[in-house]
């Protein structure tokens, strides 16, 4: 291989310019190809379809919940309260680190077995380390007469469903 230094007029020899262009093209395609491959792989890690339970689901008929009762719906990880004023649903997933809280009948509240958080029955924090209240989910009566909980929608502490 011989070099092609600029000639007396300062012009770069055509062969050298051609080689530089080919080298840039080669390097560029290599980088672009590798970046594209990596980007495709990285994107594929984010799932498009989740095979998870629906976020809105029926939990039973109002008659299934005795008056003045607290029912743990285990497979949905939430509590359904039937009070004098109506129904409401509270998440059973501790807002601290995700364990299931237990309902304590005597304490009129919830206790988390993992890190000792405690909550009132309306979800408010009684004792840390949890910083946020247990969310209360929207609950509605379907046309088929079932209580339907929507975990995508949270509601305020005054929410009650008359049913």
């Amino acid at each position, binding site marked *: 291989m011989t070099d092609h230094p600029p000639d007396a007029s300062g012009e770069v020899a055509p062969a050298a310019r051609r080689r530089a262009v080919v080298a840039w093209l080669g390097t560029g395609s290599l980088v672009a190809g590798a970046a594209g491959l990596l980007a495709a792989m990285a994107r594929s890690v984010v799932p498009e379809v*989740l095979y*998870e339970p629906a976020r809105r689901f029926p939990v039973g008929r109002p008659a299934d919940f005795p008056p003045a009762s607290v029912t743990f719906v285990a497979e949905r990880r939430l509590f359904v309260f039937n009070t004098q004023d109506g129904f409401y649903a509270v998440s059973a997933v501790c807002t601290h*680190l995700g*364990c299931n809280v237990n309902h304590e009948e005597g304490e009129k509240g919830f206790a988390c*077995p*993992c*890190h*000792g958080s405690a909550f009132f029955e309306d979800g408010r924090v009684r004792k840390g380390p949890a910083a946020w209240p247990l969310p209360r989910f929207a609950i509605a009566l379907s046309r088929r007469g079932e209580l339907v909980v929507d975990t995508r929608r949270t509601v305020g502490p005054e929410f009650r469903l008359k049913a």
Partner: protein
Amino acid sequence: MRRGAAIGATVRRLYRSVFRTGWPRTKPQRLQAMLSSLVLHVHPTRVRVGVLRPSYTLGLGLASFFLFVSLTATGLALMLYYVPHPVAAYRSMKDLEHAVAFGMFLRNSHRWAAHGMVAVVFLHMCRVFFTGAYKPPREFNWVVGVVLMLLTLALSFTGYLLPWDQLAYWAITVGTAIVAHFPVLGPQVRYLLLGGNEIGQAALLRFYVLHCLVLPLAMAALVALHFWRVRKDGGLSAPAHASQRRVTAWPHLVLRELVVLVAVLATVNVAALLFDAPLEAVADATRTPNPAKAPWYFLGLQELVHYGAILGGVVVPTALVVALVVLPYVDTHPRGVGVWFARERRAANAVFAAVAHALVAVTVIGTFFRGPNWAFVVPWAR
């Protein structure tokens, strides 16, 4: 007779095709031994006498490496029976316990070696600190070591989910919730790690791939870098005034390494024979055990998380890792290198010892002094 000689010559020729040099006897052969073997050539041909003292290194780095090798071997055997699916995973654990020849022994061995590796890696870091061995020119290798320790913890954590029992399920629930508390990208990283919002099939498969492929490969690559840098940074650390007398690595170094190997394997095997790895009831998302405890090496973290998820799960661990990484670039004074608890390093050693003791203390509290609802209990009162 002539036939016997011919067979002997053939055997010798076959042997020589594998091992080009014979058993090293003379000094030149001993020097040559390190250079003519793929396995041994990671060693120097000669080593300073000072670094051979068992009381200097305690063989901890080497013990970590041998534990990793042992874990790779038993892990491969376990992989032949383990099925990473929520329905099949727990059954394959039961198969390993009852229906596979030496299945229980292999699982025990894998479990205790993993626990041992976490402990030994931690002790190795303590050794390197207390002998000042992280100082320049070894500052980068210290950082590699910090990453190796994090990889060790990540391997333990991902391995924990695989049995799909109650301990596994709730330990990962707590662990991934801690991840979600990290500012900015926390929830997204949790989503990627679990492959969704819940711990299910996608999460199990992702943890399996990380545990069996991604993390061990990263570990192997960084272990190679760690060893290579030991050589390139001038061998093991030693005081400036140390004796420069050297002996051949064969047999002095190799023999000591074999002793560590035998000690490690013997300890793991005896533990695997005496103690069975626990397996709780099959994972149940509707029933949180009370108390729900992470593996012991994360119980310190769980104890800290009890005081606040952000403080214990994010601030303290991040601060510790950052401090470890920055340390060798800040503390560069060459005094006190190569000596245990050097007088000149009293302050640094005291700080490190205090932090290490605090970590052990919260781990002990989390392990023995926490009962239902994470309330304080005394272990001897039933």
